[in-house]
């Protein structure tokens, strides 16, 4: 198995990870490095375990009934499943954006301020204003919402809601952002804005994105991992995966010959 991400110091490393839902094994012996320099895309057919594996990276599976994770996952060399690991702290460092935008039924401002408040990142109202503005700016949303920060986050378009969720994720200044099909409910323009945003965030955060859109994976990522039936089949430079994949299973999947 090829685990080399071609990066000197990986931000996250997973070694021999197995995940079970009850008796059923959803992830089989997956080892992979994720670096901060690159956007990493996870691709593969529905049910192959992309979301399951992604959720391992910030222990979201802890909240799933019957889910059991084996193996070792490190963030900056620290075992994230160690008993000393503070899970709330971990999820601030490893943020997540979901498929369906899920803003809180609160104001736009409060949506972004929620995390920083929880983690005590602002000492004053002015501090918080600055954090909120900077997160909204980095999410490419500021100009659209600066005059309506008090309005409800749920009263925005899908694309705006998704960028609000990204703003919420980056407001706590995470180190890693996990995105699970963040554009699947968005039109091409909104999708392009999210992709542009991902490109701008690259380098500052380690970004992992799950996508079913091959063109999107090709556009936004520099590394691509192909999962199939719970295993990591191939992990390589995105350009290599999409022009000359090594494994037949990868090729059959990306060229539309799967199943």
């Amino acid at each position, binding site marked *: 198995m090829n685990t080399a991400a071609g990066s000197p110091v990986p931000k996250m490393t997973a070694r021999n990870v197995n995940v079970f839902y009850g008796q059923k094994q959803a992830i089989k012996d997956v080892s992979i490095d994720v670096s901060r320099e690159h956007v990493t895309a996870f691709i593969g057919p529905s049910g192959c375990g992309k979301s399951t594996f992604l959720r391992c990276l910030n222990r979201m599976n802890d909240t799933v009934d019957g889910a059991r994770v084996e193996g070792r996952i490190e963030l900056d060399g620290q075992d994230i499943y160690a008993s000393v690991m503070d899970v709330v702290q971990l999820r601030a460092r490893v943020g997540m954006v979901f498929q369906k935008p899920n803003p809180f039924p609160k104001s736009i401002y409060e949506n972004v301020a929620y995390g920083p408040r929880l983690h005590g990142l602002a000492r004053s109202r002015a501090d918080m204003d600055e954090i909120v503005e900077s997160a909204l700016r980095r999410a490419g949303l500021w100009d659209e919402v600066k005059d309506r920060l008090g309005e409800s986050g749920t009263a925005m378009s899908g694309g705006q809601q998704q960028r609000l969720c990204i703003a919420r994720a980056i407001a706590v200044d995470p180190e890693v952002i996990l995105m699970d099909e963040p554009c699947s409910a968005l039109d091409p323009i909104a999708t392009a804005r999210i992709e542009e945003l991902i490109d701008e965030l690259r380098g500052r955060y380690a970004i992992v994105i799950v996508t079913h859109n*091959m063109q999107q994976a090709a556009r936004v990522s520099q590394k691509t991992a192909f999962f199939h039936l719970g295993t990591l089949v191939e992990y390589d430079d995105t350009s290599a995966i*999409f022009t*000359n994949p090594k494994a*037949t299973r*990868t*090729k059959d999947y990306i*060229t*539309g*010959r*799967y199943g």
Partner: protein
Amino acid sequence: MAENAAHTVKSFDEDIAQLRAVITRMGGLCETQIADAVDALVARNVEAAARVVEQDKRMDALETEAEALALRIIALRAPLADDLREVVAAMKIAGVMERIGDYAKNIAKRTPVVAQSQPIGPAVIVPEMARAVIEIIRDTLDAFVDRDAEKALAILQRDQQVDEYYNSLFRALLTFMMENPNTITPSTHLLFVAKNLERIGDHATSVAEMVHFTATGQRPAERPKTDSTSSVYTPH
């Protein structure tokens, strides 16, 4: 070469098949154009040569068709991996085939001049050389349709054979011209004909390289040259 499974979307396979068919037709037309041009030259048949010139328009039309098909596949199917390599290669191959067609046309255009003068002995090598070139084109097209890297690789060696024909014809013509200075004009035309065939061989070989790349994603290693004659005296 491992046989590819069918695409889940069947019309994708149909598009690819259609593109391959156009490329194959271009290859077939190249073969006939070269054969007809050389036949006309040897038979000193000016009308037959004029027909070759006329037929070249079909080649241009086919190239346009191949390009349109490839663009449509890229736009509608967003092909990846070996599909992407094949579509891009098909577009390039169509361009090369069109160039090969131009060389055949150029051979045909020299027929009237050659037909007006006395026969030139070394000309007997030309049909043999043409046969070698045509076989390369045919095998290259077979390799393309089968995505057969091995076959493509084997073809690369055969360009040398064409170069050798050229080199020996070149020397024979030089001697012939020195002995018969009144034949310099038709001999020079014949030399250009040989050079055209040699260029066709080079182009066909570059197509074989593209076929290899399509099949494997790898460029084949540098191919060898034995004699510098064919690369030094370039009349273009």
